[in-house]
């Protein structure tokens, strides 16, 4: 059965207020631009959003952050996102800052059926507050899996079974989020025939994907353009 949807509006139709949403991308690299634009248009509130940066420089998820649609955010890095930093400091958003490796592993754990794991990352810091500590070779803290209702991700290529192929460093958190959500919605720059992505080169097997649509008008913004001739941004 084909998983292809017509567009962002159709693919995101059942996201409602109070949903927990994961959104792929590192900074602005590999973000689901069309799905974020659709969230911006939808009349929804009180979202919990799990994303490494919650957008950057006024772009990406910052579009819905400034609409105050996000009640709680999980992320690892705030630098370059003054709209988020301001809301954290004046406490107008609930925030859980998660070390980036713990962040990716908690998401992966959800997809893999692992309920929780021990890690030394964060021991002796604010991150460890209230968490179970156990000494293995050294002290470790217990971190729990991170689930979501929806994952919104972007792939370079997708087929109708939901097999995905990512370009360069645009892969980042996206395959992990696809595994961790009940419903994974993929926007792709190209929808290709079955078999066009050689089986050996499938980065994420379609079993983790529920919906695919063809994205359009990609900006693919560069945050810091630096070439061998110097900085251009």
């Amino acid at each position: 059965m084909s998983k292809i949807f017509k567009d962002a509006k159709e693919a995101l139709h059942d996201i409602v207020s109070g949903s927990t949403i994961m959104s792929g991308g590192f900074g602005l690299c590999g973000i689901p631009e069309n799905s974020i634009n659709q969230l911006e248009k939808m009349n929804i509130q009180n979202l919990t959003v799990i994303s490494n940066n919650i957008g950057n420089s006024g772009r990406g998820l910052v579009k819905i952050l400034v609409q105050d649609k996000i009640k709680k955010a999980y992320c690892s890095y705030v630098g370059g996102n003054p709209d988020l930093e301001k809301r954290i400091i004046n406490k107008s958003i609930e925030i859980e800052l998660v070390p980036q490796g713990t962040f990716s592993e908690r998401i992966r754990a959800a997809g893999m059926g692992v309920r929780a794991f021990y890690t030394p990352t964060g021991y002796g810091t604010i991150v460890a507050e209230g968490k179970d500590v156990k000494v293995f070779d050294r002290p470790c803290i217990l971190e729990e899996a991170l689930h979501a209702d929806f994952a919104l991700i972007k792939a370079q290529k997708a087929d109708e079974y939901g097999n995905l192929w990512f370009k360069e460093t645009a892969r980042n958190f996206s395959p992990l989020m696809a595994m961790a959500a009940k419903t994974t919605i993929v926007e792709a720059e190209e929808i290709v025939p079955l078999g066009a992505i050689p089986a050996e080169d499938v980065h994420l097997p379609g079993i983790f994907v529920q919906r695919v649509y063809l994205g359009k008008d990609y900006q693919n913004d560069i945050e810091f353009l630096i070439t061998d001739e110097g900085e251009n941004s």
Partner: protein
Amino acid sequence: MTWSKTEMAKEVIQFFKPGDYVNLGIGIPSLVAEHIGAGLDIHIHSENGVLGVSGRPSQQSVSPTLINAGKETISIKDGASFFDSSLSFGMIRGGHIDFSVLGGMEVDVEGNLANWMIPGKKITGMGGAMDLVNGAKNVVVMMSHFNKSGDAKLVSSTKLPLTGKNVVDLVVTDKGIFKPNQKSFDIIKLADNVKEEDLKLP
């Protein structure tokens, strides 16, 4: 005399041996990549999912999907690889990275590092730093010796929220190279004409 950022980067490069896997943080540490010559066979890892970072791209080869963890455009060398964030941090958390070079706000005599927030004033978030300092075999902090108020950033006890406890192996500042020894800092090397009494070491 103090070291320039470039001279600091060159001091850090002296620690590496051929074949090492090295992660470079945002800010001053990213300069290290620009000064690793082609002759030195070092593999640069960036936690957003690439191993084998090379220099800056040419105008023609810039790609919006090819960036480092500082969100800057990069190029890769032959033999590079791409992967997802979990595998990338597996390289870090699993102890496969030889050196983590990162910036700092404070380092104390026990090797505690603070580098991600000033309560009520500034929050950058920890990003991958907490994983890096606990996972890499060697942790090198690159930072200016003094803050803007003229206080040394090498302290007896950190006051800012920690990034990691007992994690720092070496600190490279514009004044020299230092190693936390529980009571103070061992001086490994000083920049030319820098006097120990000017360092405000604890």
